[in-house]
Each structure stands twice: as C-alpha cells, then as structure tokens.
C-alpha cells in the first residue's frame, strides 16, 4: 500500500509538471537523455556495445556460430535475440527464466533488426539446408531507469555494425564484417495525460498511460512498431508520434554510428 501511495504522489507531480510543459528531470518533451556508447568492449564476443541512456545501462554482445538453418528457411542464416532482465539491474527484476517483460523486449529488439533487413540472412548461408551462420544477439540490462527498448536497440545496432564473423575459426575462409544493409533506430514515446514524451525514464514509464515504440530505417520507413501499457492513443496522437520518431531516430542513428 505504501508503494501505491508513493506512486500516486509521483503521478500527480509528473502530471502537474507536464501541464506546465516540464518533465521531472528538467528535459523537454522531445528531448532524449544523454547517450554514451562504448563499442567492442567484450573481447570474447564477435561484436559488443554498451549504451548508457541516462541512468539506463545496457550491454549487448553478439556471438556468431555455425548451425543448421530452420527447415522452412534452408538458405537463410539464423538470427536469435535474447534479453535478460537480471536482478542486478533493478530490485523489480527477479532471477529465473525470462518473464513477459523480458520476452517482449527481446522480440521488439529482434523485430527492429529483422524487419529492417539490417543484414541479409541469405548472405549468411554456408551450405543450403545444412550449415548457416547463426547470429546470437544477447541483451543484458545492467542498470534500469526506463526505456529499455531504445537503449537495447541502440546497443544492438552498435554491436552488430561492429561484428566480425569469425569464419577463420571454423575453417570457412577469412573473417568478414557482418554485411550490414540498413541501420534501424527506434524511438519510444509515452503518453502521460495528454502529453507525449520521448525516451521515458522509469518514473515516467510507471505513471504513463500508453507507450509506443517505432523502429525506422535510414529512409524513415517504419519497420516495426509496438504499442504497450494499458492505455490508448488517438489517431492524431499516433501521427504526431510518427513525426517525432522521424526526427529523433535520425539523431539517434547518427550518435550510435558516428
């Protein structure tokens, strides 16, 4: 009950600030928190990146292995994305197998990569039906202060663009960089009362009505979308979101790749 009361106070506070055009940490509604990116920090991974988005801290490691293709896609390499919300990152996260929140995170990050055709899975075929490259993207959340979708997507983008397929280790010729075709970036917007705020912090997520995550490629095509939370968006709000996403994903892409 104590928690419920505290949450109510925070909610009121955030709503009142929003009425005055403000956010709890002083940001503008369309302002993303400071982003810091470290690439290639994990030597045992074929690609890696750590992204700090404000106080949210996410590490993505990419491992590449050889395996069998799915029977219905015999000529395609395999992309597998996993996410773990380890209790290290937050007292809300519990040990054990991934729960719905972690599964949704993994699937939304996966769709951002897959649907943007970030890299052509058919280029990762070695022997059709038998041997293909398998790309494992593992998201590990280290510190949690909201907006895991964007932090994780950024880290995945950064890690994958620096991934080297370790072909020589498997006697498959020379190592080569993962052949990247597109550079998706995602932007998450929450609706609090009538206000849309980008890159929500944890406190903002806790009081938000609805959440929308949109992934766009470098030509501003929409590639993936996920609405979340127990609230609703109007048509106009959705279209307003699209405009914001278009601007912000360009910024984010530049920061991550730059």
């Amino acid at each position, binding site marked *: 009950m104590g928690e419920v009361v505290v949450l109510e106070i925070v909610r009121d506070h955030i709503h009142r600030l929003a009425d005055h055009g403000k956010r709890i940490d002083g940001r503008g509604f369309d302002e993303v928190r400071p982003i810091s990116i470290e690439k290639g920090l994990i030597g045992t991974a074929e690609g890696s990146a750590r992204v700090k988005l404000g106080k949210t801290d996410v590490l993505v490691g990419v491992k590449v292995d050889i395996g069998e293709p799915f029977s*219905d896609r015999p000529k395609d390499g395999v992309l597998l994305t996993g996410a773990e919300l380890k209790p290290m990152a937050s007292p809300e996260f519990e040990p054990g197998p991934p729960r719905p929140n972690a599964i*949704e995170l993994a699937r939304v990050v996966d769709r951002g990569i897959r649907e943007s055709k970030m890299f052509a899975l058919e280029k990762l075929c070695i022997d059709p039906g038998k041997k293909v490259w398998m790309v494992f993207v593992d998201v590990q959340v280290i510190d949690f202060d909201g907006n895991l979708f964007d932090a994780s997507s950024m880290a995945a983008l950064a890690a994958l663009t620096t991934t080297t397929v370790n072909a020589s280790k498997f006697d498959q010729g020379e190592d080569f960089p993962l052949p990247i075709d597109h550079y998706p970036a995602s932007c998450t917007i929450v609706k609090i009362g009538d206000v849309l705020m980008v890159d929500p912090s944890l406190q903002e997520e806790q009081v938000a009505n609805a959440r929308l995550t949109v992934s766009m490629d470098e030509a501003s*095509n*929409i590639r993936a*979308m996920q609405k979340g939370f127990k609230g609703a*968006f109007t*048509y106009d709000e959705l279209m307003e979101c699209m405009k914001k996403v*278009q601007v912000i994903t360009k910024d984010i892409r530049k920061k991550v790749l730059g």
Partner: protein
Amino acid sequence: MRRNLNYGFLLGGMNMDEKKLINEKNIRLDGRKLGELRPIKIEAGVLNRADGSAYIEWGGNKVLAAVYGPIEAKPRHIQNPTKAIIDCRYNMAAFSVGERKRPGPGRRSIEISKVMSEALEYVVFTEKFPRAKIDVYIEVLQASAGTRCAGLTAASVALADAGIPMIDLLPACAVGKVEGQVVLDLDKEEDNFGEADIPLSVVPRTNEIVLLQMDGQLTIKEFEKCMEMGMNACKDIYELQKAALKERYAVFTEE
C-alpha cells in the same frame, strides 16, 4: 518477403516471382477486394463451465475465448488493492498449424498474451473489482493469419457474456501492405509474402487505439492509409460482436 516459421514450407513449390497476390483489377487471390474482410462468424456463450465464452470463425481461423472471474486473486501478493488484474492467455493448439506446435507457451504466445491483456484492461472497469483477477483464455484451434485479432475480438465478447462491466467491446483486425497496396485483413499467403502487417484494435465508442503492432516496411503515408482502413473495419466487426451478443440475449429471453 516476411518471415514466418510456421507456414512458409506449405508454399514449397510455389514460385513467388510468377504468382501475384493481387491481380490487375485489384482483386486478391481469394477473390476479395483490397478493403474487404474475410467471412466472420461470432457466437457468444458457447461453453458451459466458463463464466463467459465466445467462438469465432474468421476466414480460416477458429478460435475459442473463455472468461473466468472476477474472483479473488491468489496468491495474495499478486493482488492489486485498487483494481482487478486481467490475465489473458493466448494459446495455439498443437494441431492448429501446418507443422505440429509443441504444447506450452512459446515467446510469441507470451508476447501476444501481454499485449492482449493490456488492451482488455483498458476497456474493463477493473477498479470495480479490487484484489480480483479476471482470467481470459484464448485457444486457437485452427490458425490462418490474424489469430490475435480474432482472439481479441472473441475475448471482449466473452467478457461481455460473463457480465463484466466494460467501456466498450474491442473489435480488432489486421491491415497491411501487399505488393505495394494497402489491404485489409491479410490471409496466410499475404501475411507470408506481403510487405507489412499491422494488427490493431480500436475502442469503437472513442476511436482510440489500444492494440497496435507492426512489422514490415511502410512509409508514414502508407501507415496513415492503413490506420484509416483498419479503424473503419473495426466498426464493421463491432456490429458483428453486438449481433452475437444480441442473439445470445434473445435466446435467454425466449427461455
């Protein structure tokens, strides 16, 4: 070409370069127009034990929805002191797809259950039932693209059948892009070989969107068109939902 682990192989011999999903007269493979729904049949109150239930046939989809509750949530620590929890579980029967699905919830089912639960929570007056739980079970008996929309459409009818107070029913349908054109209610081949798929659900009374997912490739302009087409279709589905409940109600009054 979009990924689909379950159905792709069914089209084994088909050469997609030659086959067209939409012909020059804008007619689709199954004879529908671009903005036309597949046939939909909804029946309310189909189960004995459940507090509320509904059955939907939608194109090649056959889906059951059952509602139990509200009852006290257990164990106690999951209770919300201010409102009821909605726990929606979407499941595909082992035999509902081409290649047998292993029993038990996979990652896809868990994600769908989550977004469905969130959508339903918006329309149910959950604050009327503090500390309670409402269970919604969706069983896909036969799947053919659009199961989550069919399931959600049935689920809100089942909730109404259970007498649970709601703002409104929740019609849902998919809209997407196939061979460059915006189309309504993708069937299995369109889902497999189309360019984009958007399941969405709308509160008819307020026109608000409570479920929205997308994968594929769309311009913002195309997305606008999709939303318009989808939101309109939800109104038609809404009428079918209400008719199903009326028919169920009529049966009662005759008794």
